[in-house]
């Protein structure tokens, strides 16, 4: 158990800046998940901590000891790689005991550590197999076991679940959660999968182009994303982004106009710290509505924000239904947002079919507003909780 501090970390590959000034404190025992799109520098950051990449400048310390110039092995970190990186010519037992053996531990101690790790991961009866004869999930367990036998101060995971199928992935998420609780160890976990981040993290670090975009607990980031990037990245399906223009601002409402909406969207202003400086009539903004931020089109009081559209795709998830709506004049504008369709989440079963006409309405109380630079200006009053009743 140990804390990890990263101060002003910079990593350049020639003229390309992979990590630009990252600072982060990870308290002892925390499960921190770094999440971000592919290429944002997650692996580079993790590998810098492990000592597999030399850093350009900055400081990495564990429990206050600067390790940025220390040999990888002496840093007290263990890493689990995306494609397992098990030694193919060794048995599971040898794989897991290798670090201790190299470190000069006695046979008895190695065996004890291997047995303990195998017990935690429930792979006791795989110990004499070679990696080749294991399934993907078993291989990943062995890779994790190899880390556990070393009892490192900090565990590093680089997208460890991305080679597994969906069912196994969700099973391993639970297992990793249990492992963290059981070992109480400090863990840094890297993934591009927002579900893994939301479900496993004590704290999420959102990375973008080598910079930390925002840090916080999963629901904190989900409910109060500081930027449109974070808002779009966390949550599945993605938040819908709609172009709008400021009409007027009064004491407690922002009045917005959007092409295709009959009335003006009255977004309540409840958070005192919302930065509306510089906003005036005519300023372009972007409204963000999560898929659960819609109500039925004929609900009293919401009719002004009605959207009429055709159902493009229906995804019945069992209890819930996801609808992708071709909203006519109103459409999600960025290409990552489901091809311009509005994603709508209903917490009930719906018998919708492709092409069917459907009315929904935006709930202005569930809307986020982002300024042109992507900063969040308005958060909803109480994200999500209004919507459960309305849907």
């Amino acid at each position, binding site marked *: 158990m140990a804390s990890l501090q990263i101060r002003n970390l910079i990593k350049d590959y020639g003229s390309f800046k992979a990590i630009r000034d990252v600072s982060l404190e990870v308290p002892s025992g925390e499960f921190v998940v770094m999440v971000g799109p592919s290429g944002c520098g997650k692996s580079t950051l993790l590998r810098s901590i492990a000592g597999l990449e030399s850093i350009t400048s900055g400081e990495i310390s564990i429990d206050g000891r600067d390790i940025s110039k220390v040999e990888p092995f002496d840093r007290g970190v263990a890493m689990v790689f995306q494609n397992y990186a098990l030694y*193919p010519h060794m048995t599971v037992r040898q794989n897991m005991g290798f670090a201790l053996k190299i470190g000069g531990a006695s046979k008895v101690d190695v065996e004890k550590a291997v047995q303990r790790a195998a017990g935690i991961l429930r792979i006791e009866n795989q110990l004499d197999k070679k990696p080749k004869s294991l399934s993907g999930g078993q291989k990943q367990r062995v890779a994790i076991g*190899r880390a556990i036998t070393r009892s490192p101060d900090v565990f590093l995971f680089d997208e460890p679940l991305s080679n597994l199928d969906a069912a196994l992935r969700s099973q391993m998420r639970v297992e990793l959660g249990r492992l963290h609780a059981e070992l109480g160890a400090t863990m840094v976990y890297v993934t591009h999968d927002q579900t893994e981040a939301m479900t496993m993290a004590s704290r999420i670090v959102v990375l973008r182009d080598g910079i930390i975009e925002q840090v916080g607990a999963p629901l904190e980031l989900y409910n109060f994303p500081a930027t449109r990037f974070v808002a779009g990245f966390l949550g599945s399906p993605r938040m819908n982004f709609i172009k709008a223009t400021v009409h007027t601002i009064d004491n407690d409402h922002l009045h917005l106009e959007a092409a295709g909406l009959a009335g003006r969207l009255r977004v309540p202003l409840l958070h005192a710290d919302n930065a509306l400086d510089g906003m005036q009539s005519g300023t372009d903004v972007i409204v963000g509505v999560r898929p659960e931020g819609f109500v039925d089109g004929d609900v009293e009081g919401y009719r002004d924000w009605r959207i009429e559209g055709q159902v493009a795709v229906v995804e019945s998830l069992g209890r819930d239904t996801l609808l992708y709506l071709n909203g006519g004049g109103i459409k999600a504008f960025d290409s990552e947002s489901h091809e311009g369709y509005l994603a709508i989440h209903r917490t009930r079963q719906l018998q919708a079919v492709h092409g069917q006409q459907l009315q929904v309405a935006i709930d202005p109380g569930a809307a986020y507003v982002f300024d042109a630079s992507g900063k969040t200006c308005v958060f909803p009053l109480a994200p999500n909780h209004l919507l459960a009743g309305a849907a």
Partner: protein
Amino acid sequence: MGSRFRWVQVLLYGFVSLWSLFVLLPTAWMVIGAFKTKREFFLDPLGMPASFDFDAFERAWGTGVGGFLLNSMFVTALSVLVIVVVSAMAAYVLARTDNRWMRLVYLVIVAGFAVPVQAVIIPLFQMVSGAGMLNSLFAIVLPYAAYGIPFTIILFYAFFLDFPRELEEAALLDGCRPVKTFFHIVLPLMGPAVASAAIFQAVFIWNEFLLALLMLTKPAVKTLTVGILQLGGEFTSDWAAIMAGLSIAVLPILTVFILAQKYFVRSLAGLGK
């Protein structure tokens, strides 16, 4: 499957069969010839022997083919060992370094591969002679190794470029410095590459003639290729004995090649990736 494809297949198989015959027939003729009597050899050069007896093999063996065989085995085994060990370590360093001077070293080694033995044979002979290393089985290993190492480095270099880096990184985190990583992780996984390099070099060295002719002139140190030549001098008319000697020379390396060809083919196929 169209008939066009069938025809291409038939043509290809026909071509490969003809080519195989072209290569195998003389070999078969050599082996069959070794079983003939002297009379049969001249009266019916292409026919079959009346009986399969080993007289010719005994005559050939009697002239010291056994000694040549041992010399060849020793020279081949030692050369291959030196080539594989040196090349593996050199190629590993070359494939993993960021140092630009090392790139230059690699280029020089590749260039060395392109120099034909014949072009430097006279200076080479003078050097070996000057060092007093003529007629030494140990000494001839040195030029053999020198000629085998460049190609083997290229082969291993390609292997290392494809070698999964995570394994080495995992080893680094597990406490291995590069030397330990090489011996604990990389070397044990080099099997196919080593097998193909070894078999390739073994065949070349076993069959090498020119250097052996120049540097091994005493009968006691002759290898098979030059030893058989001596056989030709001794038995001017005993072609059956010469064929028997040649068969003895070819058989061991042929056996090794057939046993190891699985690795050989696989590893060469991997080179194209």
